[in-house]
């Protein structure tokens, strides 16, 4: 009974936050002379009204599920892995190397290798920050932010000078310059999209939709992360170290080892965040590879109350808002930035809402247990 009541309260906070941010968004839209009711109608109607639009939401949500889960693991460990941003980029690049470098493998082998390369690349990028944290007490927020900038520049150099695809066919007469990108992934390294699956239930997805099996991998991973954190001895140690390190140490738990494992796990999951774009949409890693999945992952994890199930909900919500923003901009003239403001207000208000709920739960608990 204790658990159920608290679950109900945990759902209340995000709902409060969403409601409040919708309110703030309305005020902004009124201020710029737009009709909020119309805008919200378009936001929901456009994004949820058509099946291909929903598939697009699923595609947009896929990377956020991974980056959100990476944040959940690190938050539960009591670490703030801001480096998910750099880690997924390095991971995606490493995956690209495995994708175009290896040839002649069957997809069933090649795809797992590409994914493993993504995880390995991200873990490599996380190794230095966690080493510095354990050995020298360098705060992971500082070191991972720095590693993000190093990642941007390092990848830029690798792309422009080392792995540039020089076989690209340039414009007529050899004019123009080549795109700054890697060679294309082998066909066996491309993650299959869900077109066939949808077709099997009678839905024909248009070709410009790229939602792939990575969505299911992300959902399965959410279940695994939930089990790791709440059901395994390792997850138990992770929570104990995070919530009271000295007591965990006194109980014989090796806090440093737990932290290293958890941080690397977070990075490994982060390494999958870029793969949806790499393995389905682009097919190569280029200089305009999408950024900020890492930072949005922080928001998604917060919105999802640091729970694996919550991350899926949060990622879908962000996917819907992103999709809806496109429609709102085109059809109502309200700039898409208003939707971005909506997202930000949502994150801010959720922090406040959780605080209110936590206090409420605390007083309820005192009544219940009779302190």
């Amino acid at each position, binding site marked *: 009974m204790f658990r159920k009541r608290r679950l109900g309260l945990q759902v209340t906070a995000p709902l409060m936050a969403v409601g409040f941010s919708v309110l703030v968004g309305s005020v902004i839209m009124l201020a710029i002379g737009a009709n909020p009711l119309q805008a919200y109608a378009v936001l929901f109607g456009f994004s949820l009204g058509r099946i291909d639009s929903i598939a697009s939401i699923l595609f947009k949500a896929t990377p956020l599920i991974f980056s959100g889960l990476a944040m959940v693991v690190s938050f539960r460990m009591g670490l703030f892995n801001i480096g998910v941003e750099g880690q997924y980029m390095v991971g995606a690049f490493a995956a690209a190397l495995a994708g175009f470098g290896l040839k002649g493998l069957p997809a069933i082998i090649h795809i797992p290798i590409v994914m493993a390369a993504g995880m390995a690349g991200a873990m490599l990028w996380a190794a230095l920050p966690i080493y510095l944290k354990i050995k020298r007490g360098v705060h992971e927020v500082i070191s991972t932010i720095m590693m993000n900038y190093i990642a941007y520049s390092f990848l830029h150099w690798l792309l422009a000078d080392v792995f540039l695809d020089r076989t690209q066919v340039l414009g007529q007469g050899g004019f123009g310059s080549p795109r700054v990108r890697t060679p294309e992934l082998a066909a066996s390294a491309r993650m299959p999209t869900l077109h066939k699956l949808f077709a099997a239930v009678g839905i024909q997805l248009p070709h410009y939709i790229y939602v792939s099996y990575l969505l299911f991998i992300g959902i399965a991973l959410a279940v695994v992360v939930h089990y790791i954190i709440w059901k395994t001895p390792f997850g138990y140690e992770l929570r104990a170290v995070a919530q009271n390190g000295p007591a965990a140490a*006194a109980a014989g738990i090796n806090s440093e080892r737990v932290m290293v494992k958890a941080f690397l796990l977070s990075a490994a999951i982060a390494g999958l965040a870029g793969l949806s774009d790499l393995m389905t949409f682009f097919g190569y890693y280029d200089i305009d590879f999408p950024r900020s999945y890492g930072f949005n992952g922080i928001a998604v994890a917060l919105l999802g109350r640091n729970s694996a199930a919550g991350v899926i909900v949060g990622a879908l919500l962000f996917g819907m808002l992103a999709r809806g923003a496109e429609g709102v901009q085109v059809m109502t003239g309200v700039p898409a930035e208003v939707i971005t403001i909506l997202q930000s207000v949502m994150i801010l208000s959720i922090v406040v809402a959780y605080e209110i709920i936590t206090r409420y739960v605390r007083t309820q*608990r005192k009544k*219940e247990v009779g302190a």
Partner: protein
Amino acid sequence: MISIKGVTKRFPGVLANDHISLEVREGEIHAIVGENGAGKSTLMKILYGLYQPDEGSIELRGHPVRIDGPARAVALGIGMVHQHFMLIPRFTVLENIILGHETARFGVIDRRASEQRVKELAGQYGFAIDPKAMVATLSVGQQQRVEILKVLYRGADLLILDEPTAVLAPQEVTELFANLRLLAAGGKTIIFIGHKLDEVMEIADRVTVLRRGQVVGTMAAGETSREGLAEMMVGRPVLFRIQKNPCHPGAPLLSLDDVTVAGVGGTARGHGRGHGVGGSQGPAWRTRIARAAVDGLSLQVNGGEIYGIAGVEGNGQTELVEGIFNLQPVTSGRVMVLGKDVTNRPTAQIRAGGIAYIPEDRHRRGLVLPMSIWENLILGSHRRREFVRRALLDRDRILGHATKLREQYDIRLADMDAPVLALSGGNQQKVIVARELAQSPQVVIASQPTRGLDVGAAEFVRQRLLEMRDAGRAVLLISADLEEVLSLSDRVGVMFRGKIVAEFPAEEATPQLLGPYMLGGAAPAEMEIPLADARGEGGEARV
């Protein structure tokens, strides 16, 4: 002086004060006693303006008053001496006393006038203390006097002392009581919150007993006895002398051989500690940092005996225990458990060797407060084969185990899934004791095992320790409560500045015998003089 009339204070689910009425007379020392949770501290917080009563009123010298904050309390002449001192170690006594009440002339602190006033106050009430001494160099007893002076400096006529003797050695208690009597004789009124009944009987003029938020009664100290008070507090007769079977010591199970632990400030960890010490600090401050917290200590605990360590807190007890479990590195010497050298081994390995740990600070070292009760009951044994099935924690079996412990150790709880922080202090301690003793250890290290527990829970924990001893296990007991050490132990060692300076069989040990050793192996007077006189300025402050 002050009358409390029908004061009631409710917290969610708890009636902390239930129509409390009592009267404190001008110039008396009025003790308030009661078990934990009886409502003493809530009442005091109401008097000091930290809480507002839900019902009832307070009258000061016959006039109703509303105390809406500590500032108002101070303005009304009510002062609080907290159990944990609120002093800045690097400031002088004078600076600490005037902090927040500085008198300034032309924007510059008028030291001379304040010093004059502090010296007058100190002289009037017999406080031997040098206003220019740095607080970090003072003993705990002297620091407490600074706290009292601070309150007097702000013009308090009513002083509230919250368990003032908890941190003091016996001789320091005697001095404190002498000061308190002078204060009362000088017209100050004192409310003394305590739980050591001997002390209450000695110092108080009148005693009020609280139980479950209600006043059980108020009586003159001369008209009652310790046993009578205890019965009023608990609601049933209490055994003070613990029934003990004769001791049959066996082979040594725990031996510490010339153990040194550097302690904070000189640890082996390289980072983060290199700043802030040195410069203008007094010499005593510096030597305190330089000396190892545990300094070549040796002792042996045999199976079937309880070895008690007595001593004023801060003499290396914490570091000793942490050193045994490698929570702080042992810099030299050996720790042997059951004949095996476990010095600086991984903590898990040390504990697997059959040694249990009841830590002094249960919130820091003993429990993960936000985690559930059942999870806390397996902390440290969570990787045991019986609790893990197919790589997952076996919740059903763990709950079965937890339920068994809950019955055996009488842990009162509503829901195993509730976080352990929802339990009362006594039940939290029972969670730790149950967890640690359930693994049938050969050696038990119990550090302040009954701190903060009420009489009933403390009795329960002591009985469990005696059971371990009777079962042939070795128990090392570290406690700031001298009475507890003396009543439980078979042998008593006195710890001072990181060493065992004296060791006695329990039957010979008395507070009078141990006291001087607790203060440094010399007559207590010698401790006091250098600090006040060495600087040549203490004379005027002394009576």
